């Protein structure tokens, strides 16, 4: 059965049934299917050129898959403190708020995070994707390992799935979770095609990459700092990359490093464009160094 022809109208039909009873929120359907980053960029910037939209570019021709970004994220976001099966975990779900814990526990620098929780529960992961073209939209399709995290989609299926409005997309493009509202039903994890969201077993809520929003905030509040350029105002994984393979900035600003990377490179793509999620994370395809 051709899903494109018959499935789409059914999906629309289903969604209308669900939202019929007074729903005013509309689920963004699949607006377009693009294969290259340039095509996406043209449409995105045309929509609202003046709005800041944070985006990330990962250059796979420079990335050696060393895992420094994974480790950096684990440290920065205290994920190594979710130690598995220790006594201190027990019964903490109700006595401790995620936000308090996060605020009261400064980042220890001397611990080796990989010994702690299973890596599948990190926000940043090394994931093997199948059928990725080696170059641009053409080229041989093969399985490649890439650093993967939340894509901060413009049409995020996880946000539509959450019953409690505990997760949403901010105006600047960051998809965030309010851990004080989330009830841990994990519908958003089931909805995410990238496997980006993880369930924090310690706190009983869903967590995910928030583009180091505390660092973005710092950059926006200070006149001297530029987000994506100054170290204090750049997400930690992008900052720590030893091979200069990760870039972060405002995709709607044509002068930003991310916009120029995507605009000038025909090999810049997004993952799984057919899912209609319209991600803000771009990958530059090519041979591994």
């Amino acid at each position: 059965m051709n899903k494109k022809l018959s499935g789409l109208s059914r999906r629309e039909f289903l969604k209308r049934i669900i939202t019929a009873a007074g729903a005013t929120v509309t689920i963004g359907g699949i607006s377009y299917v693009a294969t290259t980053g340039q095509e996406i960029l043209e449409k995105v910037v045309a929509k609202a050129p003046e709005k800041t939209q944070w985006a990330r570019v990962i250059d796979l021709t420079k990335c050696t898959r060393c895992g420094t970004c994974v480790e950096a994220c684990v440290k920065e976001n205290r994920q190594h403190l979710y130690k598995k099966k220790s006594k201190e975990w027990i019964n903490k779900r109700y006595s401790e708020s995620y936000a308090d814990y996060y605020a009261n526990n400064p980042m220890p620098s001397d611990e080796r995070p990989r010994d702690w929780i299973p890596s599948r529960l990190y926000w940043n992961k090394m994931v093997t994707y199948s059928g990725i073209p080696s170059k641009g939209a053409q080229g041989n399709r093969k399985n490649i390992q890439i650093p993967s995290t939340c894509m901060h989609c413009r049409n995020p299926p996880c946000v539509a799935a959450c019953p409690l409005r505990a997760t949403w997309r901010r105006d600047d493009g960051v998809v965030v979770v309010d851990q004080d509202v989330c009830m841990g039903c994990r519908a958003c994890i089931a909805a995410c095609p990238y496997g980006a969201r993880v369930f924090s077993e310690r706190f009983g809520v869903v967590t995910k990459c928030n583009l180091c929003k505390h660092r973005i905030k710092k950059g926006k509040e200070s006149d001297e700092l530029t987000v994506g350029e100054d170290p204090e105002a750049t997400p930690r994984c992008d900052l720590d990359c030893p091979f200069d393979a990760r870039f972060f900035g405002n995709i709607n600003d044509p002068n930003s490093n991310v916009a120029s990377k995507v605009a000038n490179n025909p090999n810049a793509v997004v993952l799984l464009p057919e899912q209609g999620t319209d991600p803000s994370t771009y990958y530059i395809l090519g041979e591994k160094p």
Partner: protein
Amino acid sequence: MNKKQTLNKKLLTWVISLIILVIIGAWGAYNTLCVPGTENLSNLVPWGLGVVVYIFFVLCTTGLCVLSAMASVFKIKPLVPLKRRILYLATITLVVGLILIAIDAGKPLRATGILSGHINLASPMLWLTMCYGGYLIFLLIEDFIEFTGAFKKFLAPAGIIAVVLAISAHSTMGALFSVLDARILWSSVEVYEPIFFIVSAIVSGLGVLIFTTTGILYLKDLDQDLRMDYRASLDFLRKMLLVMIVVEGFFITWHSIVAANSSAMKMILFGDFAPLFWIFEVLFGLAVPFALLISPKFGNTKSALLSSSFLTLIGLFVVRYNLVIGGMVRPLPGIALKGLSHVPYVPSLYESLLVVFGFALVILLATLCERFLPTDSEKKLLREAP
């Protein structure tokens, strides 16, 4: 007198063993709720065995609610003697189902955020939570009216609202799965799940009711008139179950054919899930019950009714398992697994204990209701029917 005493002794042993099982299950439930790292879940398989048991029980309650509406609202004669039994079974399965999903959620009490207006109207899970909440309220109202005899004129309206909410809740649960485009087994035929959920709910409602009523015929000391009434009810239920098994079989067949090209369905039909599908879902859940029930003479014997309804329920449990776990363990569209056709998922000990907890609690509560509630005084009720 002596016989009664022996019966009571047996009943006591039965109840105590069930309580022990509930306590063991509750230990597993405590662990899954409060001790992190006790569930084998991940970012790829976020829903496990806990969700399967939950769906199984809410499936039963929806089916029972439809049967209850047939008895109390539409006054279908053969079902009237059973209407109190249907009601208490529907209530028990719903309450246990809701307890199970609360245990499965990370912070279940936060669901009350819905009451303070913290809602996302686009989420199917919101609608099903609200519908099940409303359904529970109207089901309890029905219970109150039926067992106390007060406010009788409100029974039919409450029954109608309850069945509308139950069917809405259950079809929304089907939609919850089919709108998840990332999971290919569910989104491959998108209108399938909501309809199939309702069909299979009615089958499981019939399975539970036939199993319980036949069990009552075996165990309880009933007078001859009541036995005749129950026999007539069971004959009706047998025919209805036959029809619904055929409908369910049709649904499973067309879904398998339409989605046969998808890798997810291939995994179910010919891959690692094939034994579960062909042996439990098709053979035990559909073929054997159909063969047992098709002959009016043999199909109406107690052993045939008991075994076929039991097998139907086993089959339906596996249908839920294949649906939830089969849909989950398929890798996400882009993610490749080294040499594996699907993400390995084996329920942990604690997750398995959730199954023990759910079934032991339902059977325990049903035993207590059957013992202490006036479920068999329906002879009068039958005469009230037109």
